[in-house]
């Protein structure tokens, strides 16, 4: 049942959700990710797998429908773009506080405010540090191709259930709107009610019918001493995630003197820049964080031992560069290059910046 297709990143999310045995999608249209719900509506999975696809009245409603369905141990998701994700912040915090699994796709556009509909990576801070109020973390996956848009849906669900935690896929208008070849895997059936009872019966609301004690799904705790224990438990979980779930890709790093760090669409542009730089004889490598939380801090710190300098390339004003500086320290330069507001730099522009800010200064 494996097959190759040519699809848009957004369209493939719909295909991936159905094939991953997703129980429900709740969303509200917003460019540049509306094809997700459009494709799902066209696929009519409620007639085949029984998956629910529902256009809610708002993003706030969507994320709270996700909360409700996730409370029942269901495999559920939503998707939106930057302004819509802001509206979901409260719900994301509640999901994290109640330790509920879910997948949230953010196909980023330029901001702040309504901003533009063109591609951006300006929600790095939002995704990795400030998804909502309170001390919580989301696992953040950053796909850089249509294939990864597909693959990270099932990976996202797997991690969400493994840690009972929201997972955010941080994509952007480039990856969402482009078409590439994608290999689709064989469909996985939806979980049966018996499966959910057996595996998640200790927390999910499955209907208790005698037998076990009642499960309570809540993020409210009025006693600060108990709330602190809840926080400590969450922090221990995040610690485990940082130890076990770091994912990254290194391209031509072994002999590199200069390093670029970029994720998602910016990493695609940088992989072309590396080809250009290598052709000119410069030893440049690329570190691509695949998980933005947990961050591949160790590998960047290790590479800093051999590096003369780092350049982060981001479609924002320089957000991830702060994390790279934390990993590298002060002994070598860590510079940033990027464009904002929906402008996407070409490989040529990035290569000029790399020479200007790093190579020519340090060689």
């Amino acid at each position, binding site marked *: 049942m494996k097959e*190759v297709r*040519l699809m848009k990143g957004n369209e493939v999310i719909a295909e991936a959700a159905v094939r991953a045995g997703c129980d429900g999608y709740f969303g509200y249209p917003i*460019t*540049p990710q509306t094809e997700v719900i459009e494709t799902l509506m066209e696929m009519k999975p409620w007639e085949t797998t029984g998956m629910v696809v529902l256009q809610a009245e708002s993003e706030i409603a969507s994320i709270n429908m996700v909360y409700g369905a996730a409370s029942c141990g269901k495999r559920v998701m939503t998707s939106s773009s930057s302004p819509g994700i802001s509206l979901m912040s409260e719900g994301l915090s509640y999901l994290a506080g109640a330790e509920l699994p879910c997948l949230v796709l953010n196909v980023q556009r330029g901001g702040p405010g309504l901003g533009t*509909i*063109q591609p951006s990576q300006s929600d790095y801070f939002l995704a990795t540090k400030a998804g909502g109020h309170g001390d919580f973390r989301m696992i953040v996956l950053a796909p850089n191709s249509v294939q990864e848009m597909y693959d990270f849906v099932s990976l996202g669900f797997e991690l969400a259930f493994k840690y009972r935690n929201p997972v955010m896929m941080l994509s952007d*208008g*480039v990856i969402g*709107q*482009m*078409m*590439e*070849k994608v290999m689709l895997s064989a469909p996985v059936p939806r979980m049966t009610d018996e499966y959910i009872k057996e595996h998640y019966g200790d927390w999910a609301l499955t209907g208790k019918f005698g037998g076990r004690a009642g499960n309570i799904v809540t993020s409210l705790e009025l006693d600060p001493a108990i709330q602190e224990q809840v926080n400590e438990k969450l922090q221990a979980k995040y610690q485990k995630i940082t130890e076990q779930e770091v994912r990254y890709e290194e391209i031509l790093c072994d002999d590199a003197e200069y390093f670029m760090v970029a994720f998602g*669409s910016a990493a*695609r*542009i*940088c*992989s*072309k*820049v*590396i*080809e250009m730089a290598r052709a000119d004889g410069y030893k440049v490598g690329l570190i691509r964080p695949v998980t933005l939380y947990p961050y591949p801090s160790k590998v960047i710190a290790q590479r800093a031992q051999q590096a003369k300098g780092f350049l982060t390339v981001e479609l924002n004003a320089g957000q991830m560069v702060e994390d790279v500086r934390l990993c590298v320290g002060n002994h070598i330069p860590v510079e940033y290059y990027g464009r904002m507001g929906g402008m*996407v*730099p*070409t*490989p*040529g*522009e990035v290569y000029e910046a790399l020479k200007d800010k790093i190579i020519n200064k340090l060689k």
Partner: protein
Amino acid sequence: MKEEMIIAGFGGQGVLSMGKILAYSGVMQDYEVSWMPSYGPEMRGGTANVTVMISDQPISSPIAHDYDTAIILNQQSMDKFENRVKPGGILIYDTNGITHHPTRKDIRIYTIDATEECAKRGNSRLFNTMILGGYLKVRPVVTLENVFAGLKKSLPERAWKSLPDNEEAIRTGMEIIREQI
């Protein structure tokens, strides 16, 4: 084999679907492909463009700095993209509506009067496949057989009745493209 191209014109000229047919044709030929459109308000009346890459190697960046080939279908796109064709590259344009013709000497320039040809036939819907035919004549990156297969794949089944007309338009485009001396 590696082709990095831009197709640019007005929304409604079939720019994005021409790119889609090419991308599908590349898939039929077992190549790697990427199709990166302009999207949003541009599609609703302004200029529209799509970057298509076809390669026998994995494609690193779907965003290009300059292009092996530019297919240009209005003046705004000519102003924007003439200078972004690589030296030695190809520029193909329909002269209809072009007031400032391209002047570069370091690229090969072709004209294709597809608007006029479609008007003669009274079927403007074949415009983009005719242009595509012209392109394939000068840059045969995929076989005609795979283009026809890609064309079919890129269309919904309800539109398959238009396949013979579009195949013929591709052949016509191959005949009417001219090198600008």
